[in-house]
């Protein structure tokens, strides 16, 4: 969490936290594990009423941010959702909303944004392709020109909330460049197959494009010129992902530390053992650092700062490495119960692990940093 939240942001955080604790406590999350969609549409709409789909959307389409810095406001929701491993395509839907708000035509914005803001429709980004890495230059799916429009044939996977989304933002190759398309879920020739997932309530699907025909009006931004948009989307996605992971780790650290005081062995609380205390000191350091780097990345992306790409990758590589490290340490602290289905810690570990590997693993981001800081230009 940012140490400099405004009073409004602080009270919004409390509202969101209370809402989630009441509507989707961990017991409900466990029940939703057996639900096909993994989240409840009615609950999503109530959340949308609180503002969690409107932060990145302009006023004329029903959007509103608290502070004027919508991404920083949305980060608060992501963190609170992390603290309760909440269901719902927060990142996916807001990512599409943000892309449409930033690059969409008036017609695209009018068609999509109001229903996203109201919570009636959810959307997602179809970026990944099976067997390929996340980097845009590795994408192979092609949108071929046909008349004034395009035809897509192939597959995208995994796509978050791929079976649940009403709209997709599809990134595809057109000739030498990248283009993006807004595709409704009921488009002719498009089908989604559910996948299995590590996170109990976050759903993924494989999208099959069987000669899906798209008009020119479906193009978001410029044909062949989407690389910068994709970069921006990745940055927004990573900021929300890192914020959520911070919330996850925060909560695990909190309940594990509490447990150290409650659990006795050899007549002493576990919290009194130096061997364990020192591990908590390390964890506290990693935790504060994770929050610090997540905040720096969020502020940079919000401000479209020049170094946003590096800061985002730094945050992802650091948090990706340390979040699961902290949680696994906490599993160890819980002893045998830590590796049971019954204990909640695995719900958190699942979310953090899933986040660690989506939108680039820590080492992939380190490689990205190496390129961004100019290592390619150095020859000796």
């Amino acid at each position, binding site marked *: 969490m940012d140490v400099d939240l405004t009073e409004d942001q602080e009270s919004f955080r409390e509202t969101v936290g209370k809402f989630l604790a009441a509507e989707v406590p961990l017991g409900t999350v466990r029940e939703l594990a057996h639900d096909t969609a993994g989240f409840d549409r009615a609950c999503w709409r109530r959340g949308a009423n609180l503002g969690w789909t409107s932060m990145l959307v302009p006023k004329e389409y029903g959007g509103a941010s608290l502070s004027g810095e919508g991404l920083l406001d949305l980060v608060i929701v992501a963190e609170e959702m992390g603290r309760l491993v909440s269901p719902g395509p927060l990142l996916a839907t807001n990512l599409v909303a943000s892309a449409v708000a930033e690059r969409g035509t008036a017609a695209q914005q009018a068609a999509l944004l109001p229903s996203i803001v109201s919570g009636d429709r959810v959307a997602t980004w179809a970026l990944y392709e099976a067997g390929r890495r996340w980097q845009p230059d590795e994408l192979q799916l092609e949108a071929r020109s046909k008349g004034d429009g395009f035809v897509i044939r192939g597959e995208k996977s995994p796509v978050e909330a791929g079976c649940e989304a009403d709209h997709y933002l599809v990134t595809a190759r057109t000739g030498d460049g990248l283009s993006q398309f807004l595709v409704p879920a009921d488009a002719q020739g498009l089908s989604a197959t559910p996948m299995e997932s590590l996170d109990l309530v976050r759903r993924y699907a494989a999208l099959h494009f069987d000669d899906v025909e798209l008009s020119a009006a479906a193009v978001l931004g410029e044909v062949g010129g989407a690389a910068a948009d994709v970069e921006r989307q990745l940055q927004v996605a990573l900021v929300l992902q890192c914020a959520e992971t911070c919330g996850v780790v925060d909560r695990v650290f909190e309940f594990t530390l509490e447990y150290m005081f409650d659990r006795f062995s050899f007549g002493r609380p576990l919290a009194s053992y130096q061997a364990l205390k020192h591990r908590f*000191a390390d964890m506290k*350091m990693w935790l504060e650092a994770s929050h610090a780097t997540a905040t720096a990345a969020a502020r940079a992306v919000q401000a479209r700062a020049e170094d946003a790409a590096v800061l985002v990758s730094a945050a992802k590589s650091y948090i990706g490495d340390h979040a699961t490290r902290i949680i696994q340490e906490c599993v160890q602290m819980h002893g045998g119960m830590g590796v049971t289905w019954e204990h909640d810690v695995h719900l958190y570990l699942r979310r953090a692990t899933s986040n660690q590997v989506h939108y680039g693993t820590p080492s992939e981001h*380190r490689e990205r*940093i190496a390129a961004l*800081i100019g290592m390619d230009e150095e020859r000796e």
Partner: protein
Amino acid sequence: MIEPDVPVESVEAFQLRARAWLAENMPRAVDTELSAVDIDIERWQRERRLQRKLYDGGFAGLCFPTAYGGQGLPYTYQQAFDQEAVDYDLPFYIDVPTLGIIGATILEFGTEEQKQRYLPAMLRGEEIWVQMLSEPTGGSDLASVMTRATRQDDVFVVSGSKIWTSGCYAADYGLCVTRTNWDVPKHDGITVLIVKLDQPGVTVERIVGVRGDREFCQEFFNEVRVPVGNVLGDVDAGWTVVRGLLAHERDSMGGSSRYVSSIKMPFRGPRTAAFEHAIAAGSTRDPRVRQLVAEAHVMGLVQQQTSERVARAMEKGQLSPHAGALLRLMGARHGVRRSDIALEIAGVSAASWQPGDSLAGAGQFFIGRQGAELGGGSTEMQRNIISERVLEMPREVAADRGVPFKEVRHNAMPMRRGR
């Protein structure tokens, strides 16, 4: 905390002025991670000159009150200055410990007379200080002070020895932690004295470090006479002063001190030392090396981001005042990791080299690696502080708690060996 006057100049205007002044007046920094480890007397003289330049330019002691030669500005001005100062060679060794640790402690505990006498001279670069805490018999147990100060009329007579004081050979004054009462538990009989180093009975010896450096010193006090007016804080209540001093040390070393200009931004991106080593090793294309260079880059960023966060959180009371230990721990862990990375990138060049090879220092750097985890309090002590003071986990059992110090078992003074 001393409330600064409301400044006339905005932070932005100040920052621009600082930028222009630095460009005009201060030398550019060089990353010295792998270069000479010895500071030596010329460097100390250069430190004094650089500090004097800052003072004359109106940029010394930004957060020290104007009454004592400072600028009386809020912390935001210091932070703005830090951003500008990152590429310049600032008098780091005067910043820490003279200003950041000892100046801050005198400001907190000193009498009006002491503040008037000592702070302006520090800010002008005229008097360099060291802190005399550790003793050969004490290790991490700082309160087990054996250096004896006995009151005789209007002086304390001091005898004993202190160790691990960096740069004492070049210093003018020491803040010396002594024992004045042996009949009470260890924390209750301590007195902090201001000791002039150039006087009869004080002997300073330089210790040769594993890298061949001679920066650490050991001092011997043989019936040194210190005026009673040189007590900082109260007699027998010196542990309060020491705790304050240690907090200033953690803030200074960790990067959250308002009294320090030169250490906040250890990261001189985009080129970290690791990047420079990769260039020197011709391995910027090696995927393994790229991972390490990026990791070093991330460590630099994260250290800086965490320093800012923790300082802010402590200021707002969201984190314990002891949270500076988090930054000390991180600085130490990162230092160790950077040393490992340097060794890995340098490869065989770390172990055998031609004169002048730019990777030659990597091996030496590694040999002294643990210094990062020992200096300014071992990482084990930082972890104790974090777990006990920040996370409020139970304190360690201590056999000397509540026991008069003279009855506590302690180590015998080790024999001095020939060097």
